[in-house]
């Protein structure tokens, strides 16, 4: 496999993209749902395909856009998910799930059009519930950030985890 030609952007732009991702992680860890929604473009596509354990020679590959996903969301869908977290009757969120999102391996490149950035990063998400529930998910993200009127917004996110089966009961956070 070869990687596409990648064009670095200025230090200032790189710093802005890094700050965007790190702030996002802090918003999620603190359940600042409305502020998190405000980081998303109206046109956001937030996608986490299901991972398939196929042989190397299988042309279908490890995931595909037409197959089942864990997230395949537009803004309306993401707002609905947040809306559940906000309900007093979200029984499984009270006491709350405690989250840490670690973000690393950030690389910032020029996007396909002016004002867009292609940003790679890795995450480790650790969740704990109750006394003894502990779940760890790690993965890679490929984002497109876009400079909009109010600043940088998330336009596209692709989340790839290595797991073809989640070793936990749910993903009750964003990654």
């Amino acid at each position, binding site marked *: 496999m070869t990687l596409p030609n990648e064009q670095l952007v200025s230090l200032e732009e790189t710093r802005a993209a890094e700050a965007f991702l790190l702030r996002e992680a802090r918003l999620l860890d603190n359940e600042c749902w409305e502020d998190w929604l405000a980081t998303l473009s109206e046109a956001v596509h937030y996608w986490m395909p299901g991972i398939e354990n196929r042989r190397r020679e*299988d042309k279908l590959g490890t995931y*595909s856009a037409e197959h089942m996903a*864990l997230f395949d969301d537009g803004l309306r869908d993401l707002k609905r998910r947040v809306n559940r977290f906000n309900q007093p009757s979200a029984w499984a969120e009270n006491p709350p799930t405690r989250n840490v999102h670690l973000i690393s391996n950030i690389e910032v490149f020029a996007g396909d059009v002016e004002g867009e950035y292609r940003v790679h990063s890795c995450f480790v998400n650790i969740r704990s519930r109750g006394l003894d529930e502990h779940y760890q998910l790690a993965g890679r993200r490929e984002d497109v950030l876009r400079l909009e009127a109010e600043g940088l917004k998330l336009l596209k996110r692709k989340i790839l985890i290595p797991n*073809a089966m989640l070793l936990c009961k749910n993903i009750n956070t964003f990654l």
Partner: protein
Amino acid sequence: MDNNLIKLKPIEASPALPNLDKLCDMEAGRMSGKIFWDGDIYEQELEKIFARCWLFVAHESQIPKAGDYIATTMGEDEVLVVRQKDASIKVLINACPHRGNKVCFAEAGNARGFICNYHGWAFGTDGALRGMHESGVYEDSAFDKSQHGLREARVDSYKGLVFATFAADAPSLAEYLGPMAWYLDVILDNDEGGTEFAGGCIRSTIECNWKIAAENFVGDILHAGWTHDSAARAMLGGAVAQVSDFPESWSVNWNGHGYEFARDLVGNAAVLGESAINKYLHLQAPKAAERLGEFRSRMLGAVSSFTLFPNFSFLPGQNTMRVWQPRGPNKIELYTWVIVNKNAPQDVKDKWRRGAMMTFSPTGVFEMDDGENWEYCTKTSRGKVTRYQDLYVGLGMNTRLADTDLPGNVFKGQLNEANSRAFYQYWKDLLKAPSWADVPDRNGQLR
């Protein structure tokens, strides 16, 4: 269809556990949490339920071409479901008859055969042993390749759904489904093109006993209004429909299978919040009425759920099919698929694929509250004392409807634990029965 069958060595039947009647008394409508925690009971379940019953293994649309296969499990036994050159389907145990290694490590694909990584034993897609690495050295041992193929299970299908069983003495699939097939047709046969699965399969693990999940779908709509209040408000901006307000609804069961349903056409589907799906169901209902009659045409996406005993469940409307794969007394692997009418517009199919994801999948806003409940219904039984206390399963006792034309054991209303009682009764009957011939027929007697 059963030629070549069965090279399976029968497993020696273990004696039934004592005290099952104390742990599960459906006449009294009570059971004990021990049945969700006990390792000995679980081993008996693997033998007397999962090695015996017809288990769902695939939808035919997942393996359309010769050589197409998917890997799944029957209980904890790993199997390959393989399309043959003559278009038939075989279910082969995914274990080499030499040292037992897996012969296929992928979850799905297309193959000309399966070769074991260990000593190079090579099998055709029909499971026959074709050759081995260093094949010459086997000659002196009078090795007979025809005796060393992959082991097969019995296979049969019903309108696209493929089932398999390890039990030579099991009834036919048609007998196993019995009158429940009439209800399955609501989903499988409401359109002339039949059904297909969306691509892929979402898998997750839940630390719960498999029966709790299966029972939830066999007949527990009662939990929805309370458990899923947050999800309904998130998706619809309001509470779940008040099921007790429905003028008519039913709980129907037969040999441990159960279907609880209303006839509101779109009640389940509505929580997806996709007008295109509601519209499709309204357009589909008159077509379904021509095929299935007016009564069943109103069930397409209605508030309803079913489980085919033991562990295959479905939600009409959300269109998710799933298997609760047992992994020890207090763990399951949940395999989730999406079923759609083959002839539905692509846009509608895509909306169902996403809608099932949004609602009933590990990221689904409904399933999150289910998983939490089921784990703690299981884990509280860790307590030695708690484990032996009674759990109430008596709702709707003696509400059987006598004057009805509906097939199966028919009970009044969905808010009724009749299907749960029937599920646990059949579970206990199987655990007590030395063979299929010994399983009592309780249809007609259940309360």
